[in-house]
């Protein structure tokens, strides 16, 4: 159409045609117009520069609006906690006097009554310790603060509505005046949102007892069946000793135990077990069924176990049994772990006399002694995966900064298969992801043990053939960039939360702990607002059943350590802590 034609056409157009065009051009922004309307509009716009300009203006308006999409404002981090509390209030109001009560947060925190057991060793005098967990922020400065780490709480003090968490016990041990250890447990049924909140109610104490260990453990690792644990205790120049101790069931509901002398054998249980190692998605580990301790009961070592305690305000004598399964060694690192089915316990150690380097040791539950599984003197236990031990060693021990190679070892036969090049991969419960060190290794000049050199601690995919590499950017997968003296990584039973402890380079007896969420589909690390991040923590922590428990270092002013517990749901993370105590050790 020539110019003359356009002019003539425009003059011929009635004013309502421009209005129609305006309506159509706006409507077209929200979807294509059908048939004649669209064709008519195009023709009209072609002959009406004013309307065309107006159409362009509408388009520009829309683009300007869409430019406001980002940044998406961040909601308050305690929003879920507040909402959950409000819903809980609604629920309680509606169901007053009827039916069982559900606790919030919901979902993951309301599954099996899996127990995060925390054992602390305190120097408090008196009889049975009655430490009570209290909300973070109500008991003053955290001991960790003075140990060079980020204190928990780390945020501003705010009044926030506490929210309930699913039933889960926390237990700990305090050293009593008689040298035995007082075993206590408590239910943490509410926490403060995020960190640094005030106004949360104290948790309710459930029951106490006495756990007689002859020596103070350095670390304690609970079996998935929740009834026994491996305590690693230092016995001076004789190195470390591994002791098997029976634990009372830290349950709010008393379960009578026959006054018998049961064998300290693995008893794979179908009951709720410790969430730190239980794997709902793969309850039975291959390679373990054929070597089930139940099949070899005669190899068990009989020990005396006192009948279980009953929940009472009065301390009751409790389980008091220990059995040494290894001695004359020095346990290396913090990676010791039960197999998910509870039939095996693996760790890294070297002879105290220095006659050999580090090797992987394994204890078959029910056996009298642990035995050395590797013999090259450069093998380090990483984690369990599909019934196998994943161990790592330097590719060339004579090199100054060798790479790492990993192997999958059948704990029964000792047969090895290649398992990638990640150093000490900690495989998630589903067997699809792992966190480990990628990079070179270097010898620790003090211990001659191999440790991370140059590289990073990161998340990667995992298969039976080993680490398959990472997805996404390094920023999304990197857990720590600096080489730690040691690290300890533990997944929760869902494989979506992971806690990472990184030892301090100058003092491996303290480190920093972070709770991370993992996007399993995109293989990404997500740092959740309010979750503990690089908080100062002693070695040994427990993760599972929606909570992470750890112990803070002592404060500079002589204040004792505290046990801190973070509990999370999809909406947020809350924390509680104990008052200052001794030097807690957390059952993993």
């Amino acid at each position, binding site marked *: 159409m020539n110019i003359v034609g356009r002019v003539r056409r425009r003059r011929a157009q009635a004013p309502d045609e421009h209005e129609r065009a*305006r*309506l159509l051009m*706006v*409507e077209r*922004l*929200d*979807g294509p117009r059908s048939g004649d309307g669209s064709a008519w509009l195009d023709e009209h716009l072609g002959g009406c520069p004013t309307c065309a300009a*107006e159409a362009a*203006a*509408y388009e520009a*308006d*829309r683009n*300007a*609006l*869409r*430019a*406001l*999409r980002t*940044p*998406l*404002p*961040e*909601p*308050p981090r305690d*929003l*879920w906690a*507040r*909402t*959950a509390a*409000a*819903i809980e209030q*609604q*629920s309680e109001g*509606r*169901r007053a006097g009827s039916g069982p009560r*559900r606790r*919030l*947060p*919901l*979902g*993951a925190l309301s599954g099996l009554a899996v127990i995060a057991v925390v054992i602390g060793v305190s120097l408090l005098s008196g009889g049975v310790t009655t430490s009570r967990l209290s909300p973070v922020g109500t008991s003053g400065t955290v001991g960790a603060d003075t140990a060079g780490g980020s204190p928990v709480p780390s945020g*501003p003090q*705010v009044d926030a509505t506490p929210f309930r968490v699913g039933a889960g016990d926390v237990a700990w041990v305090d050293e009593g005046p008689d040298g035995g250890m007082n075993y206590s447990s408590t239910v943490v049924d509410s926490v403060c949102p995020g960190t640094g909140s005030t106004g949360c109610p104290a948790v309710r104490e459930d029951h106490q007892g006495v756990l007689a260990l002859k020596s103070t453990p350095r670390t304690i690792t609970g079996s998935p069946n929740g009834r026994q644990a491996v305590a690693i205790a230092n016995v001076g120049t004789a190195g470390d000793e591994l002791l098997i101790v029976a634990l009372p069931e830290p349950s709010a509901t008393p379960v009578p135990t026959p006054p018998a002398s049961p064998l300290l054998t693995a008893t794979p249980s179908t009951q709720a077990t410790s969430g730190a190692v239980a794997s709902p998605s793969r309850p039975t580990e291959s390679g373990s069924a054929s070597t089930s301790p139940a099949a070899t009961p005669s190899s068990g070592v009989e020990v005396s176990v006192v009948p279980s305690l009953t929940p009472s305000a009065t301390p009751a004598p409790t389980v008091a049994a220990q059995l040494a399964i290894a001695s004359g060694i020095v346990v290396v690192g913090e990676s010791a772990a039960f197999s998910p089915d509870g039939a095996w316990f693996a760790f890294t150690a070297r002879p105290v006399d220095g006659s050999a380097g580090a090797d992987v040791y394994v204890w078959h539950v029910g056996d009298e002694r642990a035995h050395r599984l590797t013999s090259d003197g450069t093998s380090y236990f990483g984690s369990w995966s599909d019934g196998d031990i994943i161990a790592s060693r330097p590719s060339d021990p004579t090199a100054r900064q060798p790479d790492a190679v990993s192997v999958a070892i059948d704990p029964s036969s000792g047969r090895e298969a290649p398992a990638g090049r990640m150093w000490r991969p900690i495989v998630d419960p589903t067997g699809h992801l792992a966190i480990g060190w990628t990079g070179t290794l270097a010898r620790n000049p003090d211990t001659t043990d191999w440790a991370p050199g140059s590289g990073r601690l990161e998340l990667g995919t995992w298969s039976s053939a080993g680490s398959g590499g990472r997805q996404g950017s390094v920023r999304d997968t990197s857990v720590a960039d600096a080489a730690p003296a040691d690290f300890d990584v533990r997944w929760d039973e*869902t494989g*979506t*939360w992971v806690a990472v402890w990184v030892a301090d380079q100058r003092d491996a007896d303290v480190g920093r702990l972070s709770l991370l969420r993992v996007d399993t589909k995109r293989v990404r690390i997500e740092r959740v607002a309010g979750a503990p991040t690089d908080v100062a923590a002693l070695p040994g922590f427990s993760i599972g059943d*929606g909570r992470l428990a750890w112990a803070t270092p002592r404060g500079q002013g002589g204040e004792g350590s505290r046990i801190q517990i973070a509990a999370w*749901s*999809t*909406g947020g993370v809350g924390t509680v802590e104990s008052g200052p105590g001794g030097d807690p050790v957390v059952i993993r």
Partner: protein
Amino acid sequence: MAIEPAADRSRDPFGIALPFRADRRQAVSQTWDRDEAAAFVEDLFARHHAEIYAYLLRMMRDADLAADMTQDAFVKAYRNYATLEKPENARAWLYQIAHRVALDEIRRRKIIRFVPWSGESRGAAPSAEHQVMDARLSGDLQRALDKIPERQRAALLLAELHDLTGLELAAALGVSHVAARALLTRARGSLRQALAAERAADLEPDEPAGRPNAHETHR
């Protein structure tokens, strides 16, 4: 950890209940499973709380108020769980609840326009993100948005910033599909006029004496 909406929930295959009806709510409230509702809302929160909060913040221009209203919206979602007939429509259903919460609040406060951002909130200082957003909203576009009716503003925000489809928009606004589209069309027209007026005012060399400074008013 996130709880999937129960796939086997036996719901009749109708769409979103539009609008909520008190009699229906009352009728079903006797039968719905509270635990199921709580689990569902927890999952809903995990998936959508950020965008619901953003929508309410954009509507109300007050971070603390938006947080309170977001909480209120999810509590209402819990209470009205039985009115959701198709879990796949949960997002639009949630927006509908949030939209009603916003309109109720606006009505309660007798606020017809945006509450101008004052740079202060009832609690903590506004975050950097809020300040950035405020800065970006503080120009002509914000003033234009201020001047259009809240239902039109809601329609624009939901369609352009929150990506609600036509049906979802209708559900969220509690009107028919045709009415929602008409509302959106009117909203675009209103915004165009308001923007033109704002830009025309910007071109004025001098502010008339006594005329409030729109820039400062909205900062």
